[in-house]
């Protein structure tokens, strides 16, 4: 967009944030009664919720059951009213399938699937409002939901997006920054070990810059981890009060 500066001379972005600053994150666990685990997250204006059912018996064909570990099934759905332009197909289209697959790959790396052979874990993610960073919000929400369901995981999975504008790496892109067409990196990290669960990049970026963009995304993911950790502890604290412990 002509005249829209993604990064001003003083180092401020369109919404007034600094280059490495995250948007405000608010999250809650245990929001739904029907599901085994659920969580709701707001990252700036992006609102996503994740619901986990399982581990339970495999639905459909028994032949899909894996003899040594659990099957992780992820589905991504974006509400028709979540974007500026109405989305015709909330789920089942190519983008949603790709997202579902990416989420599944991310969580297969983190969930200790060997503890539940021959069973299935369903993770459903619903985006209610999309303002950039939907993959990251979905992963963060799904992590909290899996924890709420009590399914053992190797570590938290924290995700964040990053971009590169005017020689500076930006963390946690909003929709305006994503739409500008610059390089975008989505990173899902297991913070304790520093291992990367998933890394995806769109558009061209010179290899010299990759290091700094990756570091910005990793730092942002670690900041998300601090926040999510606090949310989990708060939730457990509240739950233990209710149990009268």
């Amino acid at each position, binding site marked *: 967009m002509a005249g829209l500066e993604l990064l001003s001379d003083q180092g401020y972005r369109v919404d007034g944030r600094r280059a490495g600053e995250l948007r405000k994150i608010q999250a809650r666990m245990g929001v739904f009664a*029907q599901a085994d685990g659920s969580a709701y997250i707001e990252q700036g204006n992006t609102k996503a919720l994740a619901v986990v059912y399982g581990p339970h018996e495999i639905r459909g064909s028994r032949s899909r059951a894996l003899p040594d570990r659990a099957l992780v099934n992820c589905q991504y759905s974006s509400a*028709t009213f979540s974007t500026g332009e109405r989305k015709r197909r909330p*789920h089942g289209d190519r983008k949603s399938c790709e997202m579902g697959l990416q989420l599944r790959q991310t969580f297969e790396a983190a969930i200790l699937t060997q503890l539940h052979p021959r069973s299935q874990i369903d993770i459903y993610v619903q985006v*209610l*409002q999309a303002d950039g960073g939907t993959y990251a919000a979905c992963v963060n929400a799904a992590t909290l939901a899996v924890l709420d369901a009590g399914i053992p995981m190797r570590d938290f999975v924290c995700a964040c997006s990053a971009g590169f504008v005017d020689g500076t790496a930006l963390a946690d892109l909003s929709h305006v920054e994503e739409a500008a067409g610059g390089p975008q990196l989505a990173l899902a990290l297991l913070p304790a070990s520093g291992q990367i669960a998933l890394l995806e990049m769109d558009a061209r970026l010179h290899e010299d810059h990759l290091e700094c963009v990756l570091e910005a995304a990793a730092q942002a993911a670690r900041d998300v981890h601090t926040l999510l950790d606090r949310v989990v502890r708060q939730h457990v604290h509240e739950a233990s009060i209710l149990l009268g412990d």
Partner: protein
Amino acid sequence: MYKPRIHVTVEPLEYYRRFLKENCRPDGRELGEFRTTTVNIGSISTADGSALVKLGNTTVICGVKAEFAVPPKDAPDKGYVVPNVDLPPLCSSRFRSGPPGEEAQVASQFIADVIENSQIIQKEDLCISSGKLAWVLYCDLICLDYDGNILDACTFALLAALKNVQLPEVCINEETALAEVNLKKKSYLNIRTHPVATSFAVFDDTLLMVDPTGEEEHLATGALTVVMDEEGRLCCLHKPGGSGLTGAKLQDCMSRAVTRHKEVKKLMDEVIKSMKPK
């Protein structure tokens, strides 16, 4: 030793009958009592109007998006209101992913009937230029948590979302014949009636209970939904088979529906008043 948790799994019907003998239900409600209803309006900023309704545990979110369309040939003065109810697998383990199941389609058709019969919006209000341009309101309802009584929650969410919709002013430029949208001037929709749905479950062919939970719907022998508007006019009566009801019982249901309408209207007025004026 009596163990309620085992009893409810092994013989749910007997478990319920023990409570019904005392004229109450396992969650402590009376037969005519609704669950706690909460509503949150205008939380989704990408939608033109939105509302989130919680009826006990049942959660439904409604988002309304307005687009342009050409009015139908046989009614050039009318716009469209297109509702759609989605019951995704995330709301309950009974639903599978894939094309909309029977329950979702029945709910969508029910909402479409309510809109049509109650004349909640005059379709003429949605027309911008006769025969050329009109608004189409896509009302998408997503159930986030299914614990029974989906129809009441959807109707309420739809009503609240429509009250929240603001449409920008559109004028047709005479020379270019193109529509010019003025996003700075927005106005609320003219909501003519306020239809409110009240659902009942019939138990053992005789007992009527209002606002059934998922468990109660499963054990019920019949169901009934009554949609009333503020003048006590019946907009819609939905009784999909099940146990028969006498005329007297139906009258009882209608009077309960009238009371419910007052409760819901009061709640919605409170919420709208509490929202900051734009």
